[in-house]
């Protein structure tokens, strides 16, 4: 497809190379990539998506990535309206928009718990929680910067070497290219979109709901005889299935982990009388007390061992960052010259750690030693958690953010003597950071597939990353104070129940009462290390994730893996790339867009506008 407003002819030198005089004499505009139009559009979209998804997350308990929405809008505005947008320019737009949006997700999963806990403890006659907003803002901004700078050296490992799939990143690349890949691929994308959108609408509206058989988008497949402890439930999400399709054979270890957890460990536990016999539905106990905390430990151990095993490659990536400027100047290899320079990453890390320290010092009850400890340990943990979440997203499109938030708050409460506001400053920073890291990697995957220069995406996200955290915190404060007597604007019993924050509140209460499953975390880390050392990439992270998540999700995803493997065996690799991937991308986008629309509809209905 050729855009008539873009000059597309130029004198050509021998071998296809343009000589310097030809370039100097050419009236050809540069190939648009990091442009003011992409920057401004990305910031505006990012801010709108951030506010919308903060509200939706407080209402519904989940948030949605904004990459697909931003890519579609960018396509319409940059190419349709402005008639000069390029694919890599649209990639910059969606990188900025999703970066600002994702930072809000990290805030909305943690900060509301502070407001709600304060109100709860005061209502119980206690002194409540004394906290300030400024340390949270600074902590969130520190986390946003750290999330971007710490993940950048891992780009080569995750995208160039491991070739992690990042299914949503693939879907976004397919959207960005859809107008130029011919009508066939655009049509397949459209079919997938229509099917998924219609299915999501049916699910969200509850038209097929039948108590005991089909509820909350889950199908009970017990057939009346499969016991509850085998978790015979299937999550009927086409987006989840499509993520499995895109992962293909690579997702099988994750599926195998789910089968291990629910069809071997769970029945073995019941048979050995390790599960209380008076429970009507033992699966709830098995999941919450046994598999989920163990899964979190396995995730951590698997990720740490992954770092050990791939250390030579990570070291090589950091060395290439350090030498890239020199080799590029000398006309040598350009490989490595497409990343942000190492000095920027180091400066960014130092600046963010200082911000982290300032945020801790501004929190009441934190000594100088505690502030130093929390900023250093918090940064290290933030890096590890970011690696875990980025790998998990890369392999399965699923982010264990709430599990990482749980560990962060628990760890910091131990280090800071039970100081909840101080622990939450670190918790906010970690959640924002891991969201940014996973989002950055996903966007870099999209950039790889369409030929974007990583350094431009990194620069773009680096400069805007702080906006999302500050904006989301402001929105949460405004929403809280909009309640009666200037508080209670969200929480249980209100129009915005904030379920994720409610779960974190429960965890903080448990930590305060000494009820932390240390055995599960410790043994899980050891198992994760053993799995991570296997000659199967990411085995620890995949099995840990499978234990951490409900089996209904793993089962749907695994069916996608098996379907993709069968299709590849039957039709070959090229068919997968040119036919299956566009359909799968459409399935992901259709559910995302419809989910957003339904969230907006629910909110307007609650407000009485509809």
């Amino acid at each position: 497809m050729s855009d008539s407003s873009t000059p597309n002819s130029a004198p050509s030198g021998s071998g296809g190379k343009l000589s310097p005089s030809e370039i100097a004499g050419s009236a050809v505009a540069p190939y648009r990539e990091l442009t003011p139009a992409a920057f401004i559009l990305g910031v505006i979209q990012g801010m709108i998506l951030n506010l919308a998804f903060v509200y939706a997350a407080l209402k519904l308990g989940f948030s949605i990535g904004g990459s697909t929405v931003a890519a579609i809008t960018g396509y319409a505005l940059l190419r349709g309206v402005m008639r000069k947008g390029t694919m890599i320019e649209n990639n910059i737009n969606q990188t900025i928009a999703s970066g600002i949006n994702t930072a809000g997700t990290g805030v909305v999963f943690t900060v509301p718990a502070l407001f709600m806990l304060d109100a709860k403890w005061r209502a119980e006659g206690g002194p409540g929680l004394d906290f300030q907003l400024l340390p949270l803002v600074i902590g969130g901004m520190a986390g946003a910067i750290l999330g971007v700078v710490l993940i950048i050296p891992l780009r080569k490992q995750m995208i160039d070497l491991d070739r992690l799939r990042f299914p949503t990143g693939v879907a976004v690349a397919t959207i960005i290219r859809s107008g130029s890949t011919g009508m066939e691929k655009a049509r397949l994308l459209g079919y997938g979109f229509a099917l998924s959108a219609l299915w999501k609408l049916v699910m969200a509206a509850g038209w097929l709901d039948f108590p005991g058989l089909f509820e909350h988008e889950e199908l009970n497949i017990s057939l009346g005889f499969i016991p509850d402890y085998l978790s015979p439930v299937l999550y009927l999400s086409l987006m989840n299935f499509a993520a499995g399709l895109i992962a293909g054979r690579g997702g099988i270890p994750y599926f195998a982990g789910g089968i291990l957890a629910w069809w071997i460990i769970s029945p073995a536990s019941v048979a050995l009388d390790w599960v209380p016999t008076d429970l009507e539905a033992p699966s709830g106990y098995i999941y919450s007390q046994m598999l989920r905390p163990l899964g979190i430990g396995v995730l951590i151990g698997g990720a740490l061992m992954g770092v050990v095993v791939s250390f030579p490659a990570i070291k090589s990536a950091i060395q290439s960052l350090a030498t890239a400027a020199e080799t590029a100047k000398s006309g040598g290899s350009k490989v490595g010259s497409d990343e942000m320079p190492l000095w920027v990453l180091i400066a960014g890390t130092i600046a963010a750690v200082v911000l982290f320290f300032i945020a801790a010092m501004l929190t009441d009850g934190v000594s100088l030693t505690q502030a130093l400890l929390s900023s250093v340990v918090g940064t290290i943990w933030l890096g590890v958690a970011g690696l875990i979440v980025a790998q998990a997203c890369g392999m399965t499109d699923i982010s264990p953010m709430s599990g990482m938030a749980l560990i962060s708050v628990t760890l910091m409460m131990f280090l800071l003597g039970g100081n909840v506001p101080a622990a939450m400053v670190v918790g906010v920073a970690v959640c924002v950071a891991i969201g940014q890291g996973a989002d950055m990697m996903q966007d870099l995957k999209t950039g790889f597939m369409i030929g974007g220069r990583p350094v431009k995406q990194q620069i773009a996200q680096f400069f805007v990353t702080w906006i999302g955290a500050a904006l989301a915190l402001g929105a949460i404060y405004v929403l809280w104070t909009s309640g009666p007597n200037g508080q209670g604007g969200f929480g249980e019993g209100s129009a915005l129940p904030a379920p994720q924050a409610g779960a974190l509140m429960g965890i903080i209460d448990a930590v305060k009462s000494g009820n932390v499953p240390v055995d599960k975390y410790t043994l899980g880390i050891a198992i994760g290390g053993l799995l991570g050392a296997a000659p199967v990439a990411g085995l620890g992270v995949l099995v840990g994730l499978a234990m951490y998540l409900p089996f209904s999700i793993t089962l749907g995803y695994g069916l996608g893996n098996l379907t993709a493997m069968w299709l590849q065996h039957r039709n070959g690799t090229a068919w997968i790339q040119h036919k299956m991937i566009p359909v799968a991308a459409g399935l992901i986008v259709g559910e995302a867009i419809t989910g957003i629309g339904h969230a907006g509809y629910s909110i307007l209905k609650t407000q009485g506008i509809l």
Partner: protein
Amino acid sequence: MTSAEKRAAFLYALGVTVAICGAAKMPAEGAEWSDALPIFVAGAVVGVVGLVWWRRLRSQIAAAMPAQSAPDQDPFALLAGLIPDAKSLAAEVGTLQAPEIQVGVDRLLDTWVLPFAEVRQSVIDRLGMQKGAEILVTIAYGERMLNRVWSAAADGHLPEARACLPEAVDALQEAAQIAAKARETG
């Protein structure tokens, strides 16, 4: 997998499964660790034995690999085929229009680059993590530049497409040179 590898992997999986079972049991009221801890330890030991056995077998197989790979499974054969094809496209790109450039890039990707990516692990198995990573990262750079050529052609920006293709070829050639040198020095 060979049958020996399968036996090693089975022993490893068995050990890990037993370890997870032992770790899953809840401690008794007031206790910090459950009484199934010995089961966890036994499983972990079996898992470690299986893992060491499995890794040793894989190292032996990787060392024997050059004499046994089929051409479409041998990353170095794929690299050898990619370079002349890529150079040929670069030589004629000045005369090609956008759709032809896209077709040419698709051919390089489908015929050589993506199949190479499928078997990339054997590069690391045969040359080690450090050298293998250097080669794979350089190939990935070349692939990304090929994707950029495709995008620029699709956007109608032929100068960018024509300028980036030699960059892609240079990177792929650099990877081939690194691989050749690494195989010589063994």
